[in-house]
């Protein structure tokens, strides 16, 4: 552990093209890109199946849960070998990893809206679209963000493995550390990833608090 701390605090590791700021920016960039793509796929799909038939929802939710069984390392290597080393391709397994929590939580979020609330909105003359955007979505926001948080943390943690196929990011320090038996570098890289993941978690908690409609906030017990 001490070697890791020495490595992090060594000024030499904070400069240059593979310095900590550059790698950190790469890591954050990959995570954001993956998260945006996963949200663009998982969120609409989750909202859609919450309104589609029971059977369609059951099939999609089970597929999403099944996707958790896919070994990310295996997919990364397979896609890397098939695509002869494209960077973007390497992000596909991470997107697959991020979709299930987003999709399942969006679905659950809409499903838990009480029928009376939905009926009241209809009774007030809202159209289907207005019910979705003005009533259901705001009520589902806390659960949707919880899904996004789980996905974000998983992507930050798992993007380290992507360094195995030379994707860069903070995982690169861990891989180089293992290969060159430089423990300080490997442990230092790990500590940085943990710090990043914990900050992402904190940011999401804060953000959730800010965007949760006031009527939904629980009185603090």
């Amino acid at each position, binding site marked *: 552990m001490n070697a890791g701390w020495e490595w992090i605090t060594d000024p030499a590791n904070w400069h240059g093209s593979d310095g900590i700021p550059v790698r950190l920016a790469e890591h954050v960039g990959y995570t954001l890109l993956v998260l945006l793509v996963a949200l663009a796929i998982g969120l609409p799909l989750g909202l859609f199946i919450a309104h589609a038939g029971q059977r369609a929802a059951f099939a999609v939710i089970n597929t999403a849960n099944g996707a*958790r*069984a*896919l*070994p990310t390392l295996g997919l990364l*290597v*397979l896609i890397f*070998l098939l695509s002869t080393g494209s960077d973007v391709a390497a992000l596909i397994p991470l997107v697959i990893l991020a979709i299930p929590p987003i999709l399942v939580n969006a679905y659950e979020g809409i499903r838990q809206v009480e029928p009376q609330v939905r009926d009241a909105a209809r009774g007030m003359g809202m159209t289907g679209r207005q019910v979705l955007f003005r009533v259901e979505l705001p009520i589902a926001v806390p659960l949707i963000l919880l899904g996004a948080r789980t996905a974000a943390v998983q992507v930050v943690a798992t993007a380290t493995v992507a360094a195995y196929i030379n994707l860069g990011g903070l995982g690169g320090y861990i891989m180089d550390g293992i290969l060159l038996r430089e*423990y300080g570098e490997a442990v230092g890289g790990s500590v940085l990833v*943990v710090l990043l993941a914990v900050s992402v978690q904190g940011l999401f908690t804060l953000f959730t608090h800010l965007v949760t409609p006031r009527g939904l906030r629980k009185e603090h017990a």
Partner: protein
Amino acid sequence: MPEGEPLVRWDWIASHIELFGDLTVEHLKLSLLPILFGLLIAVPLGVLCARWGWLYPPVLTIANILYAVPSLALFLVLLDFTGLTIWTVVIPLTLYTLSVLVPNVVDGLRQVPEQTRQAAVAMGYTPLRRLVAVELPIAVPVIMAGVRVATVSNISLVSVGALIGIGGLGRLFKDGFDLQFTTPVFAGIVLIIALAVLFDFALVLLQRLLTPWTAR
């Protein structure tokens, strides 16, 4: 990948059946031992958290932070202490299992209806007997939901251990990468998914047996 190389070379698979068998056994040991240890720790810990509410928030925070730690990082830190033994992988996976199971045990116990609890008290059940014979059985479906999530994710996570040399079927991914050869990678993915599906199904059956009253 060289030109004209097929995605899967069946003759390679046929000649490596024995290797698949050995790796599968190691893979199961690495992914299921943490479930066993996780349950042994999570149930008492969850009971304590459900009993003394103030204990739960700090435990939940630690669980959330643990969940954020990359597995590779934990493997590396432990490598110093436990070396190339299964413990280097089993201990981190036990921690992940805990971070999934403890909240489920607490939620499961909290949703026991108050009337049921009072009925048990009125019937003269001691607190311990009430816990073991009434509350825990009612919590089984929620606890089992956590066990299923942890089992499936452990089976897929173990493969990352291959990067430090202890990874069950994950070795096939490393071999495939080193040799630029898709067949073992493909075989590894299929075997890992098959194991996950098989054990998930077995757990559903086990839950039916444990809670016959929920069956329809």
